[in-house]
């Protein structure tokens, strides 16, 4: 009976496992392997130890990419979490119109990244973009958002927040709806004001959702690529050149597979490090 169940289980699992091993597990291991090899598309692969890592860490462009990507994570992480929670709390109320506003905020989710880039590339145009038009109506001088290395990354961050904060909002909304009304009512009877209820009831109960949202936001931040590729092509002056674009450039335009794989492994290590640090931090609070 028991071995019959094992056989059945593996029969059901086998189609997915075959795909998983071929297209997820083996490529992961292969990426790590290739990062220690010299591998141009034509010649035979050759083991060269840590040379690829030495090469990329000696490449100013890679260091710029790490710095820029970190800056992007820094600019997006806190607004994405805080705004996601604020939107969820605003739209969790039983007021007329919340369902409509939720739909509007969620709509960018289904817009593809090329379209997001095309659309916001124009909104941020210095001369004809809507952003500057409305800023000038309140007395702010036009900014050359995507042509100025100081403003290009903030512009990408704003675009990304508009595009993806809805995911965080939905996770927080689901968590808020799990918090029982009685807790809030009891606290109100005990004389707790809205702020006290938020700090002592809502926030502690939101911890698992907070952990999930923070981790996802940071990991996805490190993986940013499409927006930068479409809106600024990494410029101006490499101010939006990110790690994934370095992988793309190295592997698929310069055909240096070893260093590209090494950059991928560095990306993996960075995201793992951040996930671990974040988990430790959440436990400590």
């Amino acid at each position: 009976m028991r071995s019959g169940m094992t056989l059945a289980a593996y029969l059901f699992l086998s189609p997915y496992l075959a795909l998983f091993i071929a297209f997820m597990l083996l490529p992961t291991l292969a990426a790590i392997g290739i990062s220690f090899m010299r591998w141009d598309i034509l010649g035979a692969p050759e083991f060269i130890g840590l040379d690829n890592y030495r090469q990329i860490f000696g490449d100013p462009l890679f260091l710029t990419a790490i710095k820029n990507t970190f800056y992007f994570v820094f600019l997006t992480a806190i607004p994405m979490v805080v705004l996601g929670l604020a939107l969820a709390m605003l739209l969790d109320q039983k007021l007329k119109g919340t369902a409509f506003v939720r739909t509007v905020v969620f709509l960018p989710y289904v817009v593809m990244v090329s379209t997001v880039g095309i659309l916001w590339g124009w909104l941020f145009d210095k001369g004809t973009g809507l952003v500057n038009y409305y800023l000038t109506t309140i007395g702010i001088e036009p900014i050359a958002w995507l042509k100025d290395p100081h403003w290009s990354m903030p512009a990408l961050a704003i675009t990304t927040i508009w595009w993806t904060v809805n995911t965080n909002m939905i996770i927080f909304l689901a968590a808020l709806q799990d918090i029982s009304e009685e807790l809030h009512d009891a606290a109100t009877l005990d004389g707790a004001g809205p702020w006290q209820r938020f700090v002592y009831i809502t926030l502690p109960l939101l911890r698992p959702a907070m952990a999930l949202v923070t981790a996802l936001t940071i990991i996805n931040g490190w993986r940013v690529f499409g927006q930068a590729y479409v809106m600024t092509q990494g410029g101006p002056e490499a101010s939006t050149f990110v790690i994934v674009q370095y992988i793309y450039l190295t592997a698929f335009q310069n055909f240096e597979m070893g260093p590209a794989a090494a950059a991928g492994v560095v990306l993996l290590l960075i995201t793992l490090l951040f996930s671990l640090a974040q988990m430790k931090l959440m436990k400590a609070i």
Partner: protein
Amino acid sequence: MQDQRSNRAGKSLGGRTLAYVLMIVVTALWGAPILWMLVTSIKPESEIYAYPPTWIPDAPTLEAYGALFQRFPMLTWFRNSAVVGILTTALTLAVDALAAYPLARMQFPGRRVIMGVIFATFLLPYELLFVPLFLGLNSYGLVDSIFSLTVPASANAFGVFLLTQFFQAVPRELEDAAIMDGCGRFGFFWRILLPLTKPGLATVAIFTFVASWNNFFWPLIATNSDETRTLPVGLATLVGGAGMSMKQSVLMASAVVATLPTALFFLALQRHFVRGIAATGIKG
């Protein structure tokens, strides 16, 4: 009972007013870019850069859509995206449902290890995989094919995770009774488990399709001809380089065409999207 939630924030008139003001601001900030895209796509050339900007076109026209379809292989890109989306969704749904059944409902050696390894890939930046995937597919001559755009994507663990949760909720007694009746495990899976978990299957199907429709980086690498290029990659060629001189109305028309299928999908099936994100928090 019905009005309980209103106690939370908007009890006082002042609180409610503030909430409505904020809701209007949020609607404007999130809705305006989408509306601008729609409005611009039907503007005549003379009105695109009108100052001050106009939100209602004086003389709406579809000429930008005409130019878009005439100058670019939009129909080919659109067809490729549709074929890739449908095939990826069908394959993913089939293998994910089969895999989720034993993970959710059977005890067997290796179960915990398999679940651990599969779900650990949620933390994996997929960009890491693209170099070896490209090299592997290239050695079989499979780059720039429908295969390279569909089959590798089906290894994503999101659907397995979601369906495992849905399958666990089906009562044990149903399965025991079905197997007693000589239905067999596959019979139970096919005739009872799947029909009972249609909402879960719908959620996985929708997410897989939208993720495939919007997928950018891998198709950018894995395609190099219009014969296989999907919409996101094709549209990206409209901007930068030669596309710089492209009229904004044509670009916005491309944005509308690309967004329309997923937007309609979303408006019709909103609750499935919400459930999918709430359950896992995984984008795509």
